[in-house]
């Protein structure tokens, strides 16, 4: 018994696609949360909280997460996923 290479590749694609979709959903949630936070008036003070001095870093991290989650390769594997592939060929 020897599973063909295209099926092994499809398993990688399907699993990567599933992870990519979760990452994109998480990134979208973070972006929406950041937007709501930034739109609150008057501006929120982070003094004395764990985010004191870290707000810029967190903002950058959210931007980075969104960029990574939505890289072209992520959308490529999502588009190439085959739902009926069982996904256990690796």
């Amino acid at each position, binding site marked *: 018994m020897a599973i063909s290479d295209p*099926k092994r590749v*499809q398993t990688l694609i399907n699993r990567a696609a599933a992870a990519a979709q979760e990452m994109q959903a998480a990134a979208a949630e973070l972006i929406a949360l950041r937007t709501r936070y930034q739109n609150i008036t008057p501006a929120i003070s982070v003094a004395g909280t764990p985010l004191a001095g870290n707000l810029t870093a967190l903002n950058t991290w959210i931007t980075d997460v969104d960029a990574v989650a939505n890289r072209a390769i992520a959308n490529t594997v999502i588009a190439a996923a085959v739902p*009926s592939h*069982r996904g256990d060929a690796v």
Partner: protein
Amino acid sequence: MASRYHLDALNARIPDGAANGGARTKKVLNKYYLAMADTAVGGTINEHAFWDIKVPVGLVTPLTLVIDFLMLSATSGNIVFYVYVEAISDTDPINLLTTTSFATVNASAATAVPSSAGYPTSVSVSLTNDDAAVAADRLRIWIARGATDAGDTATGDLYFDRADLRDAA
């Protein structure tokens, strides 16, 4: 070559439980198919179904099975069918409640899938290993997708439509 029996998706005997590799019945546009996955259950059990018939009087071997199928989403690659035959005569010393005696597998050639999903095609399988079937035998035909075959490269479900059992008469 004469058509001897029609194997339809709805008159199949399907093993109980997904763990046993039973093909999955699908109803699409009021038509029934048996879905067979591109990988085996647990890596070893290719999804399959059985048909249980009486060998028609006048049967002349060799037998051929012509299987109609389509692909759910694949537009490239090949598929392979595995077909097993079990023929039981009245005088055979076999306990049918505890034993099966299928002959060696008959594998189809690796067959290219249609270039469009859902398009019909067919493959002919020579049943060289027919378990010495003769008229009046109890004949079981086991059809599986050869998901574990290196030649089966198409991804996603195969939809078995129907099959025609033909003999040499």
